[in-house]
């Protein structure tokens, strides 16, 4: 096999250089700028550590680091436990209605997290439905679940499905003979799970946990809505940046740097641990869910249904709320389409914006992602290697940091892009590109290079080979990946909330701002539109791929 370490002038090199240039301009430059801003005094233009000193000298700021780490770590642990347990139960015991349960789980993953926060406020907030019941029943003054416990509840329920999907996939690749061998050797029940099953799927649990950790740490909407006094890093970044626009941007930059340092450490240590625990599995005979009897069966069903109910509850609350009759901001008796009517009349543009931007972003993501994956996988050299590594960095850059970075980089001539739709699309592209590149590369990996060689030996030029052979073989995988990306792009909040202006509002931003204003009805209507979009996209995805599962 020719690894071709030499660089040859051809169309692929041109593509590589273009991609590198684009990436350098729209990602590396902003991130470098934010790093520079954190240590350069905006007035004297001299090197200074003042921003960091300010951060570390006040407990008010340093406590946010601990707050973030505490809640994120606990969310990750809980989500990992819950997700793994759910996956194992669903894979080993036959659960009635499993298909529909899985669809609920997937919808939960794909909905924006702050919708959960907002629904739980409606249920368990100070004047929530459930809170009032509790207060009446026990005659106490329950203050609702705000702060730490609120964030924990919302994020755990929102993120455990990620682990569930990962682990469920891994369990499918575990040959049942491993289970049988363990049982044959006298290892059964809980002992088998901890001695055989968990070690085998540990790399998967770790990979999923990393994703959960990153999302929980970077999540902005949830702590903003339900966190109240419990300040986390993304909230601090947002508030200090928004309130200090034009003033001391260095401070927001410094916090961003601190967050990126944390995510980098977590990312690298996960990679380190995972690289030492890689296990290749492929199953001829996957685990079959078997019907359980008696108490075990009842408990398994109770567990699964309870968790899925709790996870999906916010969606139902939102849909229910969206149909309530309103009078201004107040809900009144009865049902109506009022919320939808005012949603469409006031927020029509944010709906069209969402579709326009997200589709534009997906087209760009697919084109760049496929090409970059191709050069990185098939034309290995120093340049494509660099490109491959660079395009992975957005993994560890939280949305709010990326938002600030882009805004600082492009808020003056000649690169005045702030306030344009372009910058929103750019942020969508950057945030989702790593996933598309990974999944396209994985698809390419499945395609044997000899298929391309066969085409060339039959007289097809390299470019024609790509067009006629490689691309058609990649399309189904890339398309389903694109649909997946699209669903996550339309629920993006933490970066676009920093970059939007009145005319470039998207659905998630509108929902967020309506919730903040107390316009719960309109917010619910918009959220329902978002959910409906997701469900339709999901159904198309299942139809297209003939699958009943998704890869994130």
């Amino acid at each position, binding site marked *: 096999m020719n690894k071709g370490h030499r660089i040859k002038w051809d169309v692929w090199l041109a593509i590589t250089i273009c991609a590198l240039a684009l990436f350098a301009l729209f990602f590396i430059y902003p991130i470098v700028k934010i790093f520079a801003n954190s240590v350069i005094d905006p007035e004297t233009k001299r090197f200074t550590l003042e921003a960091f000193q300010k951060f570390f000298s006040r407990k008010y700021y340093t406590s946010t680091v601990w707050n973030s780490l505490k809640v994120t770590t606990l969310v990750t642990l809980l989500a990992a436990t819950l997700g793994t347990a759910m996956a194992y139960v669903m894979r080993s015991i036959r659960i009635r209605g499993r298909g529909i349960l899985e669809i609920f789980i997937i919808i939960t993953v794909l909905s924006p997290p702050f919708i959960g926060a907002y629904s739980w406020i409606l249920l368990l907030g100070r004047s929530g439905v459930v809170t009032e019941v509790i207060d009446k029943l026990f005659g106490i003054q329950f203050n609702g679940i705000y702060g730490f416990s609120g964030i924990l509840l919302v994020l755990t329920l929102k993120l455990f499905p990620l682990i569930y999907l990962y682990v469920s996939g891994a369990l499918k690749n575990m040959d049942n003979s491993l289970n049988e061998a363990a049982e044959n050797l006298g290892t059964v029940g809980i002992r088998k799970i901890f001695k055989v099953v968990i070690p085998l799927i540990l790399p998967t649990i770790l990979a999923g946990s990393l994703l959960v950790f990153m999302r929980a740490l970077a999540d902005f909407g949830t702590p903003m809505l339900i966190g109240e006094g419990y300040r986390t890093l993304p909230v601090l970044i947002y508030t200090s940046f928004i309130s200090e626009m034009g003033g001391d941007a260095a401070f927001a930059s410094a916090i961003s740097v601190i967050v990126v340092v944390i995510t980098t450490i977590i990312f690298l240590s996960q990679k380190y641990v995972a690289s030492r625990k890689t296990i290749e599995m492929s199953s001829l005979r996957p685990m079959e869910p078997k019907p359980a009897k008696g108490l075990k069966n009842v408990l398994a069903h109770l567990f699964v249904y309870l968790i899925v109910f709790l996870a999906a509850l916010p969606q139902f609350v939102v849909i229910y709320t969206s149909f309530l009759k309103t009078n201004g901001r107040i809900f009144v008796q009865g049902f109506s389409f009022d919320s939808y009517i005012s949603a469409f009349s006031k927020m029509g543009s944010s709906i069209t914006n969402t579709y326009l931007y997200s589709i534009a972003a997906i087209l760009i993501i697919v084109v760049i992602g496929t090409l970059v994956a191709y050069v990185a996988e098939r034309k290995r050299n120093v340049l494509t290697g660099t490109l491959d590594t660079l395009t992975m960095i957005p993994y560890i850059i939280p949305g709010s940091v990326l938002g600030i970075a882009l805004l600082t980089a492009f808020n003056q001539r000649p690169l005045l892009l702030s306030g344009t739709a372009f910058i929103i699309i750019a942020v969508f592209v950057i945030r989702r590109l790593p996933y598309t590149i990974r999944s396209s590369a994985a698809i390419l990996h499945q395609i044997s290079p000899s298929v391309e060689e*066969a085409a060339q030996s*039959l007289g*097809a030029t390299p470019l024609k080979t790509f067009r006629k052979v490689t691309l058609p073989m990649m399309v189904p995988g890339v398309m389903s990946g694109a649909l997946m990306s699209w669903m996550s792009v339309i629920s993006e909040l933490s970066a676009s909330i920093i970059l939007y202006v009145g005319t470039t509002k998207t659905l998630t931003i509108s929902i967020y701002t309506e919730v903040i204003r107390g316009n719960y009805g309109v917010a619910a209507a918009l959220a329902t539109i978002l959910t409906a979009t997701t469900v339709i996209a999901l159904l198309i995805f299942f139809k297209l791929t003939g699958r009943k599962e998704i890869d994130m």
Partner: protein
Amino acid sequence: MSVSISINQVVKRFGERMIIPGLSVKIREGEFFTLLGSSGCGKTTLLRMIAGFNTIEEGTIHFNDTIINNIPPHKRNIGMVFQNYAIFPHLTTAENVAFGLKNRKMNRSEIDAKVMEMLKVVKIDDLKDRLPSKMSGGQQQRIALARAIVIQPDVLLMDEPLSNLDAKLRLEMRSAIKEIQNRFKITTVYVTHDQEEALAISDRIAVMKDGIIQQIGSPVDIYQRPYNTFVATFIGQSNLLDGRIVRMGDELGIELVNGYRVAAPELNADVFEGQEVKLLVRPNHFELNQDIGLEGQVIDSTFLGMHIQYRIRLVNDQTVEVLDQDMTKSIAPKGAHVKLKINAQLCNVFDRKTEVSIVRGVTRGE
């Protein structure tokens, strides 16, 4: 139109690692030529250099008189068949076969006619509109073969085309390949690690090890007159016995352990008395008896219907494999003391140091 392939002193390195340290061979027009060797011997690397998928560091490869070193793969006019079939999964059988013709700017009806004709040759014309994903390995490899031949390549290259097939299909495809090659007379370079396959299918075989050709010759030459002990042990089953050249009357002979002497086949002129040698004895060149020969003791025996296979320990503790085709005798029991007569005229003799054959007329070949 077929071509001859001249490979002159080609060198291949992957980074620091030398894969082929300067190899020369001439493959004749219309010949079925096999590169045989175990994995890592450089046979596939050489094939891919001919195909254009591997660069040539030094030396040249000619098709007839044209140097092809710098011609890109898609302009070399080669047909290639891969181990994993490399069928385009998104195209039907007919579209797969037509792929190369479409690159040659032929008109539609001509393409259709050629495709149909070729599908009939490889006997999959009934599958022409099907997608390959549900087909068997044998059917997929037939598509691959048709696809490679239909473009009337100058050279047909095959990289272990049968090793992903099961035993029965392998035999079937083997004769299909041989038959088609005979019919179209395309210069064919075939790579395999399976010596039986190589013997069965080739006009000539090059046995490779560490990027160096050990011997080139017809299947008969390679099997019956191996150039060195590597080829001798790689092809077929063999026992190598230490011995010493002795004079037996007018002729030279070989003395083996415990003084048993056999008449040698005709040896090179420079062979001298007392020279230390190795005698290659194929299992069927032993004759089991009670009277004369090497002394040994039966370790175990396996009845295989057509013959009996013994493992016998000699007095110097060496274990040899013996095939007894004389089914009229009863099977020698385990532990029995036997004698092994050797039909040395059919055997090969190698110098013990150089491990090169000293039988007259045996060369490395070219």
